[in-house]
């Protein structure tokens, strides 16, 4: 192998140091705090306890959890249903137009979701575009109460997170070997059969990747309910934020973060398992 030069040590060392210092150690601190006892003074006392986790599985938190999970899950399902045909059609567009279309797709992906949330407020507010439009058509007699509802939060999550579903799906649909579809068709498979037995299993990694990129932020993006939902609707993100900034219960906020992180690891593991299955198992047998 290569000689151990000074350059090598700098390149390897800086990488290892940065990740250890600013990723691994901070995560470990969160894990450590989740086992400590909250102190009335706003800090913690160094007494080991499982109380935070007990509290997390108490009814009060479970209600927040349930609402947040339901919201995140429905956001994931709706974005998946909307994005899948979109990504599929995008792969079926001639190369020259597709380049431009993809660029137009990527721009919202990278645009600040705060600004995109703000744009929704303009549309949804009482004297906003949507109400003005519906009033002028005569479909409604007085402005609808669109903003500061659960539906507004849901719309906001779908709107800001849709690009995060589209891109992984597109990447995985693009890799799909179209010869497999042709072969299946030649062998007499119907379209639904082709979809459920070939296209869907082969794009499963993309579906999982997209779902992860939508589901996790949908639990955590606290400013969307803050801006669109008023005080009533609450995500796990709002809960965590409040534990740190309002309630001063760091162990509880930490344990909620730990649970969120575990969830992320599960989803990532699922992604790797599914993509490995395709690369090394099924795919080889098919070819």
């Amino acid at each position: 192998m290569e000689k151990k030069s000074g350059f090598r040590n700098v390149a390897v060392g800086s990488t290892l140091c940065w990740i250890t210092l600013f990723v691994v150690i901070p995560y470990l601190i969160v894990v450590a705090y989740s086992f400590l006892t909250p102190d009335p003074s706003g800090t913690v006392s160094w007494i080991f306890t499982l109380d935070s986790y007990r509290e997390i599985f108490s009814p009060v938190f479970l209600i927040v959890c349930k609402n947040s999970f339901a919201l995140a899950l429905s956001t994931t399902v709706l974005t998946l249903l909307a994005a899948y045909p979109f990504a599929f059609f995008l792969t079926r567009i001639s190369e020259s137009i597709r380049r431009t279309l993809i660029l137009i797709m990527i721009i919202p992906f990278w645009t600040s979701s705060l600004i995109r949330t703000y744009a929704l407020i303009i549309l949804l507010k009482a004297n906003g575009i949507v109400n003005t439009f519906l009033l002028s058509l005569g479909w409604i007699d007085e402005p609808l109460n669109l903003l500061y509802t659960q539906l507004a939060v849901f719309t906001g999550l779908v709107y800001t997170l849709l690009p995060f579903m589209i891109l992984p799906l597109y990447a995985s649909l693009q890799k799909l070997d179209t010869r497999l579809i042709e072969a299946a068709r030649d062998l007499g498979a119907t379209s639904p059969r082709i979809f459920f037995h070939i296209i869907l299993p082969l794009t499963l990694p993309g579906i999982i990747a997209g779902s992860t990129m939508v589901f996790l932020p949908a639990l955590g993006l606290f400013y969307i309910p803050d801006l669109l939902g008023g005080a009533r609707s609450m995500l796990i993100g709002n809960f965590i934020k409040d534990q740190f900034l309002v309630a001063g219960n760091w162990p509880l906020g930490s344990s909620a973060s730990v649970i969120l992180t575990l969830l992320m690891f599960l989803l990532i593991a699922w992604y790797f398992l599914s993509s490995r299955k395709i690369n090394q198992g099924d795919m080889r047998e098919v070819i």
Partner: protein
Amino acid sequence: MKQAFKYAYLAFIYLFLYIPILVLVIYSFNDSRFSTNWQGFTFSWYAQLFEDGPLMEAFANSLIIAFSSSTIATILGTLSAFAFYRYRFIGRKVTYSFIYVVMMSPDIVMGISLLMFFITVGLSTGAATLLLAHITFCLPFVVVTVYARISGFDRNILDAAKDLGATERRMFRHVVLPMLMPAVIAGWLLSFTLSLDDVVVSFFTTGPSFEVLPLKIYSMVRLGIKPEINALSTVMFLMSLVTVTVSHLLIAKENR
């Protein structure tokens, strides 16, 4: 029929994504503070932005942080991508998977873990902690962008450089880096955009002494809609538009 449906559906999703942004941009030129109706074209909201001292200061702060964090993240990330590609070292696989973990982890968990880390080591939150946080969340995007290009390399080129007596540093500087340049610039631009737009991580890792634009916008929006915010958001959207377009063209060019 099938073709028509395909194009109609694509158009529908694009409209869904872009109509709110377009409305925002149009309203930033509307000569009325409260009305939803079009009252004539004006630049006055943009002019007012420049006169708003605290806002301009937050904007300058954001630019400084975005510029320096993306530059440091790009240097570090390019070195990392090269290290992951060329060297075998203890913890290589674990570290590389952590790059993905950072990219996927919810912003709120990252923000909180960094906040607790800074408190534990006794750093008070402000410009320095914000910079460290931004470098950390930009780093994976640079590593992944650069690594995608480096893994397409012909390894023989590196061997040739070694055979001709180049040291590792020389080889990196004169052979690898020039070939990586489009990906390096793309990584920088993406980091710049990420840093400029970040709300959640900044929310936890900066202090009252150092205000940045997205947080300023966040607190303004909570108080209600103002035409000045429309103008400001339009400016930020245009900045993302330019940086993302350029970086996309750089990455697309290398794949051609």
